[in-house]
């Protein structure tokens, strides 16, 4: 069997809300798998169930052929888990944290030093500093080092890049890519769509439901419509006018631009321009672009609603 994590018809209910609704996912061995979705979509709940911290209401998960409910003890030995919130001891130093986690996993820092060398060497100059006094990026590197110190088979990362600067985020993803070489299955959740393209495969999750599971390239390919990027002098007015336009399928704001899809199979750029000019907008620029993950996500969300 080449799957590392098998999730089938998983459901978790909080009070009356379905936090997770019939989730089915198959994550291959050695895969860098991204769970992408906005806050409150159910990412943390799913990761915590896989991590044996929460019990599912129905459905099953097996990881490396072990059941998360029955075999949680064995699973905790092969997991590296990094919770969304920094969860190491802030009053212990970097090296004390690392040694502590190495010991509780029955190993030593020296034994698996190769695995964490690239990451740990960056924070080693600060090894006698207390974890609480590290910067966000360094904390995250320490947390990753601690999660890896026992050479886990499966790495579960819950929003590892939230609250981390752009440079550290990029570095972090490079580290994950490097880790794949060591036969580790990596399951990572993130609210940042731009990080999705760095994963082998991604699952888009919204309101406890998986919208799509694909490689990042295929997800954008599945985007069935032509996407237009529009900008003008007054973005807000254009947005408002387009929402009242009879052919508008979707219009969303992306930075300084608007991303627009049309109800017609082939959008008529000139007629859109004319409509906007009539409404008193100036300097209108329209061009066709390739959709990104976020466009796909928005599109899938609308589809899901209908």
């Amino acid at each position, binding site marked *: 069997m080449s799957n590392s994590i098998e999730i089938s018809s998983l459901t978790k209910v909080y009070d009356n809300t379905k936090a997770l609704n019939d989730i089915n996912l198959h994550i291959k061995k050695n895969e860098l798998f991204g769970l992408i979705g906005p806050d409150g979509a159910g990412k943390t709940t799913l990761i915590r169930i896989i991590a044996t911290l929460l*019990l599912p209401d129905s459905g099953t998960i097996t990881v490396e052929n072990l059941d998360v409910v029955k075999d949680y003890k064995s699973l*905790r030995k092969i997991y590296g*888990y990094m919770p969304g919130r920094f*969860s190491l001891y802030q009053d212990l130093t970097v090296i*004390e944290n690392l*040694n*502590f986690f190495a*010991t*509780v996993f029955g190993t030593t820092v020296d034994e698996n030093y190769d695995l964490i060398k690239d990451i740990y060497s960056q924070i080693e100059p600060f090894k006698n500093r207390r974890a609480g006094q590290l910067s966000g990026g360094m904390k995250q590197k320490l947390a990753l080092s601690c999660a890896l110190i026992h050479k886990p088979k499966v790495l579960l990362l819950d929003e590892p890049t939230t609250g981390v600067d752009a440079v550290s985020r990029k570095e972090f993803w490079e580290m994950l890519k490097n880790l794949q070489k060591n036969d580790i299955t990596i399951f990572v959740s993130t609210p940042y769509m731009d990080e999705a393209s760095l994963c082998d495969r991604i699952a888009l999750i919204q309101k406890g439901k998986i919208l799509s599971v694909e490689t990042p390239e295929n997800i954008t390919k599945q985007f069935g419509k032509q996407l237009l990027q529009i900008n003008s002098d007054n973005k807000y007015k254009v947005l408002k006018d387009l929402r009242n336009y009879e052919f508008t399928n979707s219009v969303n704001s992306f930075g300084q631009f608007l991303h627009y899809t049309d109800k017609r199979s082939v959008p008529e750029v000139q007629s859109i321009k004319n409509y906007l000019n009539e409404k008193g907008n100036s300097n209108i620029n329209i061009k066709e672009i390739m959709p990104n993950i976020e466009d796909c996500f928005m599109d899938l969300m609308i589809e899901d609603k209908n």
Partner: protein
Amino acid sequence: MRTIISIIKKEFTQVFRNKTMLPIIFVIPLVQLLVLVYAASLDMKSINLLVVDKDLTPLSKELESKFTASPFFIVGNSISVSEAEKEILNNNADVIIVIPQGFEKNITNENSSELQFLFNAINGTKASIANGYSQRIVYDFNQNIILNSGNLFPETAEFQKINIENSFWYNPRLDYKIYMSSGILVILVTIISLILSGMNLVREKESGTIEQINVTPIKKYQFIIGKLIPFLIIALFELAFGLTIAKILFKLPFEGSLLLLFGSAIIYLITMLSIGLLMSVFSETQQQLMFIAYFFVMVFILMSGIFTPAETMPQWAQKLNYINPISYFMKIVRMILLKGSGLKDIINELLALVIYGSLTLTFAVVKYRKRA
């Protein structure tokens, strides 16, 4: 084993790195022993007494001088009962003695007379102690009259031979400090063990570190032992530290075996640490834990017999004390230190603590979950 040692090591590092911890460990016992022992003393040295002498005879003067001679009373005079009552209302007097007119005459003629005592009982303890002291003085005074009139009434003279001599066992000088300091020591180790262990576990919940710990192969028993042992050691150290202070400052006697004392302390502390653990299972924040702990500790301490002997409590309260671990240990400590009791004498209390400890520990371990 390596895991447990590593957890213990981690706990000690954290405790000693916490800037408020060291003062808590060293300053609190000193302050508690110094302030509470001196402040809570029941030895009363300045009872304000007003004498309303309506008799004004040598005998009434003699009675008054008995009070003046006593170290416990500050004696004043008042012309009338209503004047004296006003002083009680203004809180300037604690006791009034009314010596009625014809006091001396009645004693010589009719062989008996009456005295009236009025006590300010706002503070009931103070009033009853003042009452005890006054009774004692009047009793002595009475004995003297019988003695002096012995020649006239030979049959009553027989009574004078019964002379009451009190001897206070286990605390011969009725030194209140010995009683109090032994009690304060119990409170001290109770609070250190209960609150520190509870707070520590809840802190792991609050800071989220428990989330990381839970996804490790650490077994429940390893985690709990690793958590409890550091605080057991700290509390035993506190006990030793407190005992030393009490020995030096109050000459607290060590009549019994210290080994037995520390042995019982370990059993008691395991009970308190388990209660702390149990409270932390039911609390999500340190604040919640503090309120739960405050409630139990307050009730347990006041019922434990630290200020008033548990035996004088009403029946229902004494029954309630069966579930009060502090009262058992309070008894054990005083019996070993003051009375020199051996294992045989405290076996019942000790057994109660063993049962208590195993029940709470089991319950806490069962209730402690590594996942939701």
